[in-house]
């Protein structure tokens, strides 16, 4: 297939219309010459009109083709050429898609084996002079010899990481752009539709897509495992399990809470079912949903975590009207129990959710009481101007009309901050005391009027004041933002320090506990990306449309396509030769009259 190294130059093809446009529109009144032998001219015109008209149009055609040939030459046309064995040195970026979907078994063979075979063929045909890179679903681009990369490929397992093919191609392109050798990208993938995304491709770096022969793979997978609002009470709760895949296909689902006996149910693709846990003892519970084995194992298991604890024993004051109403709602739903363990709205003797005093005269006394409790934070002056809470896992964006500055310690204060307004601390935690920068009243913030208010208060009373800040979900390879106070992440007996680390990137599925010192402040459930369950493929035509100029072939043709695509013959010389011939033809046609006249 013909390609162009500078396709923008094809704009010059428009110039090919210039001779015709000149012929049609640039005619002008010619000068009059007195010429006695006009009768001979008239006679000549009568006798030769048809031939000369033909010659004229031929000249027009030749000039049009001449400009077109020059425009094509400027665009740098190329066609595939060369052979596999004798290919010239080149730079190859091999992208092997070993994402979870490549673990699907088709007719007894994992898709990854087919993909691995195609890569093996290519690496086997590579020369020592070739520059080779290998990229897999973990996102790492490895440089090496064909033998080194072959060893990597041979022991490569199915990854838990999703691979965005467009991003992978972009990474490969960026790597190859700095290479002097002719470069090409080879994508070896099952072309899962959910993994395909666009990627700009420069004309100088061809893309070869090697994909297995398309076959329908029926699959059911667990797309989601949602425990709902937490913590659960001792009476337990329900998890909602979402099933992805073929609606006609059925399989048995079992959900296990910790070591307890599994609860089973028959499910089908597209279903969403709710399973009750039954009474649970306080603590952290791992929930494991599992489907019967099918062609894709990676999505048959999904993990989650549930926090079980009694509701907070809290006290609210009637004068804090909106807080009192929210407390009543939580009490009515069993999310709170009346008691004095948590004081909501003022600084109590135990855990407290403190808001600024209604009367500023009481601010000094409050600050002194905080200091007496060893709280390093205090209320400062009112902050002028309205603000908006910064969106985060705790709360979305809500307008804040009035607030007081929260003054904290210069060192380590950042870890205490749970929420900010315009970048400044608005909700901080120190020990078992939470300090709000604004009163939870519509005169200070519109939050009490929103639907988020009751869940927010639930979070404050049942989790934040206890130091349990987050329940996170992620996929392997995702970058997870940890709470600032996190010091380590543990999975089983493995503990990974994360103090001072903003992002945590889990590499495999599992349930990770987030620690702050010795306290567990959250949990991270890592599961395969639910998009991996949809095994529908992108068609070859769609791939070609998306990645302009890509060549899509099967594994058997992969090696030849790779090296043929890498070696393209430059047609500029041919085009310039054609242009030269056309120019000569033009000169010949244009000067025929003059030559004949000279002979005469």
């Amino acid at each position, binding site marked *: 297939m013909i390609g162009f190294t500078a396709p923008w130059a094809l704009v010059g093809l428009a110039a090919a219309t210039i001779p015709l446009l000149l012929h049609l529109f640039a005619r002008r009144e*010619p000068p*009059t*010459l*007195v*010429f*006695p032998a006009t*009768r001979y001219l008239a006679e000549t*015109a009568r006798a030769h009109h048809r031939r000369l008209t033909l010659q004229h149009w031929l000249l027009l055609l030749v000039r049009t083709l001449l400009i077109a040939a020059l425009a094509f030459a400027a665009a740098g046309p190329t066609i595939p050429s060369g052979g596999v064995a004798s290919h010239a040195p080149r730079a190859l970026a091999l992208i092997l898609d070993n994402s979870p979907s490549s673990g699907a078994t088709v007719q007894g063979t994992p898709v990854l084996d087919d993909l691995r075979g195609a890569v093996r063929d290519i690496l086997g045909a590579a020369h020592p002079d070739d520059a080779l890179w290998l990229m897999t679903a973990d996102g790492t681009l490895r440089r090496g010899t064909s033998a080194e990369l072959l060893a990597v490929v041979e022991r490569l397992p199915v990854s838990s990481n999703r691979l965005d093919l467009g991003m992978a191609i972009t990474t490969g392109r960026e790597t190859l752009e700095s290479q002097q050798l002719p470069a090409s990208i080879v994508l070896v993938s099952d072309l899962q539709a959910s993994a395909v995304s666009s990627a700009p491709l420069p004309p100088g770096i061809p893309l070869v897509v090697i994909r297995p022969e398309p076959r329908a793979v029926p699959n059911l997978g667990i797309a989601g495992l949602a425990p709902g609002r937490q913590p659960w009470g001792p009476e337990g709760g329900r998890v909602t399990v979402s099933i992805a895949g073929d609606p006609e296909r059925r399989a048995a689902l079992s959900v296990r809470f910790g070591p307890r006996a599994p609860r089973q149910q028959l499910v089908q693709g597209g279903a969403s079912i709710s399973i009750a846990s039954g009474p649970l003892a306080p603590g952290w519970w791992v929930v494991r949903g599992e489907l019967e084995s099918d062609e894709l194992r990676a999505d048959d298991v999904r993990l989650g975590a549930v926090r079980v604890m009694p509701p907070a024993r809290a006290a609210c004051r009637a004068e804090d009207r909106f807080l009192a109403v929210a407390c009543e709602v939580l009490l009515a739903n069993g999310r709170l129990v009346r008691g004095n363990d948590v004081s909501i709205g003022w600084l109590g003797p135990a855990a407290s959710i403190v808001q600024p005093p209604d009367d500023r005269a009481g601010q000094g006394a409050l600050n002194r009481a905080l200091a007496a409790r060893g709280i390093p934070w205090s209320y400062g002056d009112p902050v002028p101007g309205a603000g908006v809470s910064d969106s985060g896992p705790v709360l979305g964006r809500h307008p804040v009309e009035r607030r007081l500055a929260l003054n904290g310690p210069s060192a380590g204060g950042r870890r205490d901050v749970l929420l900010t307004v315009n970048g400044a601390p608005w909700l901080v935690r120190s020990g078992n005391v939470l300090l709000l920068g604004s009163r939870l009243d519509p005169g200070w913030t519109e939050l009490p009027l929103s639907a988020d208010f009751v869940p927010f208060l639930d979070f404050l009373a049942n989790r934040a004041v206890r130091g349990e800040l987050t329940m996170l979900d992620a996929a392997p390879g995702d970058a997870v933002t940890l709470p600032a106070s996190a010091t380590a992440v543990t999975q089983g007996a493995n503990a990974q320090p994360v103090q001072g680390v903003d992002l945590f990137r889990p590499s495999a599925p599992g349930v990770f506990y987030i620690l702050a010192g010795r306290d567990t402040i959250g949990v991270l459930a890592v599961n395969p990306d639910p998009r991996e369950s949809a095994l529908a493929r992108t068609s070859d035509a769609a791939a070609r449309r998306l990645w302009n100029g890509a060549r899509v072939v099967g594994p058997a043709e992969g090696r030849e396509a790779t090296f043929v695509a890498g070696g393209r013959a430059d047609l500029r010389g041919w085009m310039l030769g054609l242009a030269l011939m056309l120019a000569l033809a033009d000169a010949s046609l244009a000067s025929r009259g003059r030559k004949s006249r000279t002979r005469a």
Partner: protein
Amino acid sequence: MVSPAAPSTKKRLDLLDPAEVARLGGLELITQGIVEGFLTGLHRSPRRGFFIEFAEHRMYQPGDELRYLDWRLLGRSDRLYVKQFEEETNLRSMLVLDTSRSMDWSGAPDRRLTKLAYAERLVAALALVLLRQRDATGLLTFAETVRKVVPPRARHTQWQLLLQELAGTGPGEGTAAEPALRRVVERLRRRGLVVFVSDLLFDPPLALNALRFLRHRGHQVLVLHILDPEEVELHGPAEARYEDPETRQAVILRPADWAEAYARTVQRVISEWRVACRKRGILHERITTDTPFGLALRQALVRSTRLA
């Protein structure tokens, strides 16, 4: 009057560029120079050369040139006789000049004479040559009508008369060759020489009939086809509207595209004239206005019986 011999001693005026020659002086002066040069170039006496066929002797009279004395007869009879030749006094020549608008044109006015100016000088030179061999020579000019007629005479003043008529003849409008030639038929009762000088830019049939009629009357007919080089080879801007000065017929075309075909047409027309003349026993000579007058005279006269 300045002798034309002066320039001719250094340069042969008959072989110079016609436009350059025309700048040297008036019609009379340069014509004499041309003819002197032309006759010198023949390498023989013009009189001896012009005498075609011996006719009779006559008694010597004072004034006759001694070289025409028959010395052999003097030796035998001790009497002075001079040789007389048959054609010497019999030939009556008529020069017919086309002065139509198309003749008053030059493709390069700054470098070449118009066809009419060239033809006037050529006709004057021819007349001088003919008069010098004592041929009665006349002139007829025509355009859309017959304009001037000078009857053939062999007087010494005849050439001056012809020059006056030529000098006073400007360009006319159209071309009516056939009536002019009919008039020649009327004027030349005896056998003679008719030299028809024209660019032949008219419809040939009528003129050819008249020329043939002249030939039938026993006249020797010579057609001098005057052409400007620009009429033979088409030049011009990228595109031009060409207009006939007589008929106002116009053609718009690109010279570069049509030059080849035009050149072929001109060659064909000239060839058709030549063939048509040959069929009728008429001599046809093509002369372009960049041809030196001496060469043109040679073309005109060498093939005619007056120089054969």
